[in-house]
């Protein structure tokens, strides 16, 4: 205790404030702050000349949401619901659009992280995952339809009885 007092804290007050000051000086590593303990105790910033807080990015700490995060999330979720409509084509379109929209935003976020909010980035990632899953599902359905049509022809596809017969033969 006495060593700390000698080494880092210039004003010697024999109460718990001292240990607090010692902690602060460890945090900031700037002994000049200790001379004014009442004013800037809460303000442990490395360089006092910087007007912006370290987490805040450029415009005085204002962070924007990524512009396409919400759209990506909504499209990704819709892609699973519509994966079965019209032979899966709508699901594929929605998934691809969501992925394209999200790619640019992801690059933006990784380029300058301080400008955008973390929550919107999380939303964007969730949207990406949803879009990928929906895209895979609807792509499988589209492929199945195409394979079906190639192997058995459209005439079979449009005829209910023929399909029933074919499925029974398959089993």
């Amino acid at each position, binding site marked *: 205790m006495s060593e700390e007092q000698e080494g880092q804290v210039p004003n010697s007050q024999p109460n718990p404030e001292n240990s607090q000051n010692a902690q602060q000086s460890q945090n900031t590593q700037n002994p000049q702050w200790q001379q004014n303990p009442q004013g800037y105790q809460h303000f442990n910033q490395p360089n006092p000349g910087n007007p912006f807080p370290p987490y805040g990015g450029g415009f005085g700490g204002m962070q924007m949401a990524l512009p396409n995060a*919400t759209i990506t*999330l*909504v499209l*990704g*979720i819709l892609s*699973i*619901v*519509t*994966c*079965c*409509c*019209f*032979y899966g084509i709508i699901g594929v379109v929605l998934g691809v659009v969501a992925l394209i929209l999200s790619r640019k935003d992801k690059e933006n976020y990784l380029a300058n992280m301080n400008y955008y909010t973390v*929550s919107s980035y*999380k*939303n964007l*990632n*969730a949207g990406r*995952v*949803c879009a990928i*899953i929906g895209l895979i*599902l609807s792509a499988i*359905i589209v492929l199945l*339809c195409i394979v079906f049509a190639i192997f058995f022809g459209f005439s079979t*596809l*449009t005829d*209910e009885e023929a*399909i*029933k017969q074919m*499925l029974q033969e398959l089993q």
Partner: protein
Amino acid sequence: MKGIPVVFFLLLIGEGSGLIHWLENHLLSCPFKTWTGIDCPGCGLQRSLVALLKGDVWMSFKFYPATLPILALFIFTILHLKFDFKNGAFLIKLMYIFATVIIVTSYIYKIYHHQLF
């Protein structure tokens, strides 16, 4: 813009039976089903929704088991976009995967038990 859900809700309560009747007779037909006669993985969703509007949860589950998870996912997503929960994005991912698994499983079950027609 804020009034739309309220108006829809009032409609639902005010002439609920009429709306359900109208919905029952105006279901969109799935092109896959009309062409081939075979259920697609999404078939049953509308019937299931109508059953849910009637208050019959079990019938809704029988028509399409993934209706409730999908609805929950929708509502949670809207709430998350509005209020920005802490782990909301992660929960959305989980619910989405859950719904997907249910859809695929139920379709395989349908194929296996010959309920496609």
